[in-house]
């Protein structure tokens, strides 16, 4: 990333002090601490932390793409396109920044799984290897495989509980609305 981009994103993002304060407040706020929530709310509403986290998500994708494809630009482009397709399948119109971030996380986790699978398969197909090296790669593969369902679960939870959904059933003249986990059906 260029210095100019960093500077621009900083100007709409958090100051260093705010970033530190925000990081410190996240734990208590998640636990429901009212004071921490009150302090975090304006930062969330202002969206100041999205540039930083968005950059982090892009960085994660880039480092895993580098690790998977090395200097081979064609294979890299293939994985890049597949990652973008997956992102497209997971994103929905009107997604919040949080949902977009959670989708980016799923994509990053998918890249990690692909990398771990390729690496371990190459090891198994190659010459004989020391047992502990095999165990190391298998452990990496297991860790990567755990990340995907965890990331999917976080996305599903946010969508189920935070995203309002409206379904109109024209034939039976029913409107089913669902908001923050509470469903309600209204007859016409």
């Amino acid at each position: 990333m260029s210095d100019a981009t960093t500077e621009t994103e900083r100007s709409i993002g958090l100051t260093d002090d705010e970033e530190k304060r925000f990081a410190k407040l996240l734990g208590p706020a998640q636990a429901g601490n009212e004071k921490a929530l009150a302090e975090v709310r304006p930062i969330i509403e202002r969206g100041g932390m999205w540039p930083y986290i968005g950059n982090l998500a892009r960085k994660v994708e880039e480092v895993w793409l580098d690790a998977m494809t090395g200097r081979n630009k064609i294979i890299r482009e293939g994985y890049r396109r597949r990652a973008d397709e997956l992102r497209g399948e997971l994103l929905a119109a009107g997604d919040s920044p949080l949902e977009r971030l959670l989708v980016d996380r799923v994509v990053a986790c998918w890249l990690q799984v692909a990398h771990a699978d390729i690496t371990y398969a190459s090891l198994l197909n190659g010459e004989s290897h020391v047992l502990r090296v095999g165990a190391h790669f298998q452990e990496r593969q297991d860790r990567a495989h755990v990340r995907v369902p965890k990331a999917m679960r976080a996305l599903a939870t946010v969508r189920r509980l935070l995203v309002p959904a409206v379904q109109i059933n024209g034939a039976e003249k029913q409107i089913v609305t669902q908001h923050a986990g509470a469903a309600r059906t209204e007859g016409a």
Partner: protein
Amino acid sequence: MAWETRGNGTYYYRSVRVGERVVKEYAGGGLMGMLGAEFDEERREERAARREHERAERERWAALEAPADELDELTDALAGVALALAGYRRHDRGEWRRRRVRRNDGDGAVDRAD
């Protein structure tokens, strides 16, 4: 592993682990000793190179996983804060549930979930 002088000759011994103990194993003197020492030296270098390769591999993985771990932590934290702000609570890392709120329905205050 070492050369040892016994009487007028110099002989090469290597250390070998037998169960819990390390014992000295006679490799030979003269040309046999030199070949044994050279072989052991190559094995040592191979092991050191393998250890170095594994260490570098672990460091490479750590560097790859560090930003991914940070992203996981941050997104989990942000999702948690967003849910907490929307009135949800999670007990002991279980399911997120609506926070119980105190409501007054006219007959006195009662605790109930939204």
